[in-house]
C-alpha cells in the first residue's frame, strides 16, 4: 500500500512527470512558436520588409524579399541575442529530457485504437508516434544544420549564418543546382517531422491542461481543445510556410542576395554573425 513506497520516490515520480509536461511547453513549445515564425518569413518576408529596398536600391522581388528578411532575422538572432549558447544548451537539454522521459512513458502504454477507435484515443497513439519520429527529426535537424554533421546532408552542404538561406535550401533540396533524390527524401522527412511535431505540441498543450488540473469539466476540456486546435492550425500554417519557403528558394539566387547583404553590413561597420567584416564567399557549394 501507499506507505510501502518512500515519499522521496513518490515525489520524484511526480516531479519528473510534471517537469516532462512543463518542458514540453516551456521552453520547447515557446521556442517552437518563435522558431516557426522566424522560419516562415522565408515566405512572407517581403511583407515584413515594408517596402524597404535592397542594397542596390531596387525593391526586392517577392522571393528575394523572403530571403533578405529571413537572412536579417538570422543575423539579428546571432548578433543581438545575449547568451545565445546558453539558450541553445537549455533547449537541447530540455529536448533531451523531454524525449528520454517521453519515450520511457510511452512504453508503459499499449495502444488499442483498433478496438476503441475514438478520436481521443487516436490522438493518444499519434502523440506517442509523433514523439518517436519527432525525436529523430529534431536530432537530424539540429545535427545537420547546427552541429555541422555534414556527412548526414546530401552533397555535404554545411549550413552557415552568413549564407543562412542558400545553405538551408541546398541542404534540403540536395544540391545548389536543384533537386536530387536524396534532397527529396530529406524534404519529405522535414514535412513529416514538422507536421507531427506541431501536432505533438498542440495536442500536448491540450493534455497538459488536464494533467495540471486547469481543465476539469468536459466543457472546459472541449473549449481548451478548440484553443489548442486553433493554435495548432496556425502553427501548422507557419511550419508548412517555412518548408515551402525553403524549398521554393533557388540557392544560387539566394546567394546573390546574401552577398549583397553581407557587403552592406560590412560597409556599415556592423560585424557579421561570424565576426568577419565582409565575408569572402565560403568554399564549397
Amino acid at each position, binding site marked *: 500500500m501507499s506507505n510501502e513506497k518512500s*515519499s522521496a520516490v513518490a515525489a520524484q*515520480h511526480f516531479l519528473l*512527470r510534471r517537469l516532462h509536461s512543463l518542458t514540453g511547453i516551456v521552453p520547447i513549445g515557446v521556442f517552437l512558436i518563435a522558431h516557426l515564425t522566424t522560419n516562415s518569413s522565408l515566405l512572407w518576408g517581403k511583407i515584413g520588409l515594408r517596402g524597404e529596398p535592397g542594397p542596390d536600391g531596387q525593391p526586392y522581388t517577392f522571393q528575394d524579399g523572403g530571403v533578405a528578411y529571413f537572412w536579417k532575422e538570422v543575423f539579428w538572432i546571432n548578433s543581438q541575442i545575449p547568451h545565445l549558447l546558453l539558450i541553445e544548451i537549455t533547449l537541447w537539454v530540455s529536448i533531451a529530457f523531454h524525449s528520454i522521459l517521453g519515450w520511457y512513458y510511452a512504453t508503459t502504454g499499449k495502444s488499442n485504437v483498433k478496438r476503441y477507435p*475514438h478520436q481521443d484515443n487516436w490522438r493518444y497513439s499519434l502523440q506517442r508516434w509523433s514523439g518517436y519520429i519527432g525525436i529523430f527529426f529534431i536530432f537530424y535537424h539540429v545535427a545537420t544544420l547546427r552541429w555541422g554533421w555534414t556527412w548526414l546532408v546530401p552533397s555535404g552542404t554545411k549550413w552557415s549564418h552568413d549564407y543562412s538561406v542558400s545553405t538551408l535550401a541546398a541542404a534540403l533540396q540536395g544540391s545548389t543546382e536543384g533537386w536530387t533524390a536524396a534532397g527529396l527524401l530529406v524534404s519529405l522527412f522535414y514535412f513529416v517531422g514538422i507536421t507531427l511535431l506541431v501536432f505533438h505540441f498542440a495536442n500536448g498543450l*491540450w*493534455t497538459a491542461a*488536464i*494533467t495540471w488540473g486547469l481543465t*476539469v469539466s468536459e466543457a*472546459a476540456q472541449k473549449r481548451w481543445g478548440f484553443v489548442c486546435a486553433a493554435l495548432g492550425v496556425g502553427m501548422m500554417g507557419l511550419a508548412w510556410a517555412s518548408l515551402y519557403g525553403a524549398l521554393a528558394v533557388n540557392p544560387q539566387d539566394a546567394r546573390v542576395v546574401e552577398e549583397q547583404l553581407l557587403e552592406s553590413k560590412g560597409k556599415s561597420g556592423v560585424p557579421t554573425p561570424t565576426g568577419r567584416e565582409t565575408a569572402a564567399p565560403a568554399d564549397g557549394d
Partner: protein
Amino acid sequence: MVAPSKPVTSKPDEVKPEMGRTVRFTIHRCDGPGKAARWESFDVPIEPGSNIISVLQYIAAHPVTIEGKRTTPVVWDSGCLEEVCGACTMVINGRVRQSCSCLIDHIAPRNGDEVTLEPMSKFPVVRDLWVDRERLFYNLRRVKAWVPIDGTYDLGAGPTENPDKQETRYKLSTCMSCGCCLEACPQFNLEEDPEHWDSAFIGAHAISQARLFNEHETGKQLKRDRLDELMGPGGVSDCGNAQNCVKVCPKEIPLTESIGAMGRAVTIHSLARFFAGKK
C-alpha cells in the same frame, strides 16, 4: 478454430429482430491459468429478450460446437443480472460491457449474425470468460476509497454535507467496480504479479473514487493519504488522456473530469507540501 472474422453486427433498433433466428457465438476459451487459449463457436437459437447470460446458459446446457464436437460448458462470472454488480463484464464484439445488459435483439437481430465473446484482457483469466479482478479492488485500497468511521465508540453526527458536492458525488458513487474503464485504457495493462501493482497505473476507477471520498466531509480526513498515493508511481500523472474510460463506462461516470479534478488536487497538494509540508 481460427480467430473469428469481423463480426456482423447491427446498430440497436436499426433492424427488427427476426423471430426464431439462430446466432453464432464465437467464444475465446481457456481451461485455466497458464493453459492454451482457443476459439469455439456455438449456434444458439434466440428467444425474444434474451441476453448474453441466457445464451451462455443455453450453451452450458448444450455444449456442442458448430463442428458437432461435444465440449465443456463455458464458464463465466455473474451476480446481480441487472448491471449493478459488474461481475459479468466481458468483451462483446470487441467492446467491453456487461453481458447481462447486452441484449441479443440489439447486437444480433438477424438470422446468422455473429457475436464474439472474450474475457477482459487486463485481468488474469480464471477460466473462459471469468477473470480475476483482484487488482481492481487492490487499487481501491491504494487510495483508501472509504470513509474512516470505524472505531470503538460513537463518533457522533458527521459534518454537514454541501448539496452541490452531494450532487457531484452521487454520479461518482454509482461506480460498480466492473473494470470497463480499465479494459479500455491503454495505460492499464495486464499485470499478473501483485508485486508490481503498487507502481503500475492505478486506473480511472480508483482516481474517481479518490475524488468521491475527498469530496465527502468525513471521507476527506484521508485526503492527504489519497493524494500522496495519486502523486506516486502509477498515480494520476500516469494517465495518457486517451479518454476511452469515459466512453465505455456503463454508468456514464465523468471519469475524465475526475482525472482533471485529481490532477488539480495533486498540483495544489504538491505545492502545499513543497512550501509548507514537513516532509
